């Protein structure tokens, strides 16, 4: 999920990733997923973490089908009710949790998010998955890894590693949510 969605103003700095860059990064992750899953590709489930992880998961599924001809299942898991920082951040509207008909038991689940930062969102998503079923394995794909982990979590697929300072904000925009694709860093 976007850790900086409250950012009000348009950034004046040039984007770190342009719309074309975002497309290329998504393609690359799709190729990596196909390669790494191998014969298991059919049992793969892409589970997006709302808000922007959800369209990202759908895009990845679309690219995987284009490149491999295999249609993979997609779902979303809202982690709001699993967060451990509600007291600090206050409540927010909940988003969809939708899993494929076949569920996730015994399957390879790849969590998809836009930015990997503290790792707390992923921790919450893992807790949510545990209540939803028992996957064979869980992996993580993110568009941007900006560092500053607070938990022992790492991504299996990273679109771009971006060194940042803690005070900076990383803003991912996706056409489905924001009208256009870009990734920017603002101080």
């Amino acid at each position, binding site marked *: 999920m976007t850790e900086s969605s409250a950012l009000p103003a348009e950034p004046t700095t040039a984007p770190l990733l342009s719309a074309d860059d975002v497309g290329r990064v998504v393609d690359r992750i799709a190729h990596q997923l196909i390669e790494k899953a191998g014969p298991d590709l059919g049992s793969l489930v892409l589970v997006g973490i709302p808000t922007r992880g959800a369209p990202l998961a759908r895009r990845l599924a679309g690219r995987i089908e284009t490149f491999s001809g295999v249609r993979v299942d997609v779902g979303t898991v809202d982690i709001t*009710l699993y967060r451990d920082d509600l007291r600090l951040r*206050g*409540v927010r509207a909940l988003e969809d949790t939708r899993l494929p008909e076949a569920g996730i038991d015994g399957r390879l689940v790849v969590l998809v998010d836009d930015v990997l930062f503290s790792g707390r969102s992923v921790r919450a998503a893992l807790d949510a998955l545990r209540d939803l079923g028992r996957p064979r394995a869980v992996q993580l794909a993110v568009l941007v890894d900006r560092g500053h982990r607070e938990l022992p979590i790492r991504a299996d697929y990273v679109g771009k590693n971006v060194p940042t300072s803690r005070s900076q904000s990383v803003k991912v925009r996706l056409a489905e949510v924001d009208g256009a694709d870009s990734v920017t860093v603002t101080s």
Partner: protein
Amino acid sequence: MVVKRHLLEAADLDRDDATLVLDTAAQIESALAGREVKKLPTLRGRTVVNLFYEDSTRTRISFELAAKRLSADVINFSAKGSSVSKGESLKDTALTLEAMGSDAIVVRHGASGAPHRLAQWVQGSVVNAGDGTHEHPTQALLDAYTIRQRLGRLDGVRVVIVGDVLHSRVARSNVWLLATLGAEVTLVAPPTLLPVGVGSWPVTVGYDLDAVLPKADVVMMLRVQAERMNASFFPSAREYSRRYGLDARRMGTLPDEAIVMHPGPMNRGMEIAAEVADSARSTIVDQVGNGVSVRMAVLYLLLGGAPGSE
């Protein structure tokens, strides 16, 4: 946003607040649908006290289940057999519970406004689970949720509320909430069971049930207590039932899609015939189930945020 501290009355909720509660309840319901583990860690470490001065097993259990599904610790404090029956005041009871670490008090009380008083005395959240003849906001929220679930919308839905409006906290909460959400509310009752001042409510008032049923999307039957008969609110149970009860014949005059609601507990044969209560139009069982989701949403929205934040 409902990042208020208390839920005291439906009249307090604006359209965005109310919609957020309903949407949150829907998300919670779908998140839990089909799961074996019907439990979320959201309110782990929080304590919810059910402070019930009136017997209401169903409401108490619904709140208890809601709090437990969000992993809160739940304490049930019934006024009977406690210090309350020894004359302890509401204020002292509330301050005692808070000193024991309660984060929220869900209160049912026979006196209108008791939750408002409580909210003036405690730091934590107060949820009104029914106060006197004033309001029962979570009942209205679950009713609105049920209508939206069945009919797909609330805006423009024609809701007829029938019965003892004068003494009904359910009716008051529904009037305000449904009006806020864009429904068209009609009250039908003997004039003795409508409050003086009902003219200032955002409703249409009628005395003839048969006249309004063919144009109703929802009929909500209120419980009528037989003791009202003794105070001459109406002459007899039979006459009441004949003029204001929902029987199979009357149900037949409803539009095809219309639903029949009742907040429970029902007086079968009085305000509602058994065959109506058990018909496919009846949402009475749905209402009970939806109550848990809606109360989870309320507890999440009130307690999920920073303690004491407005």
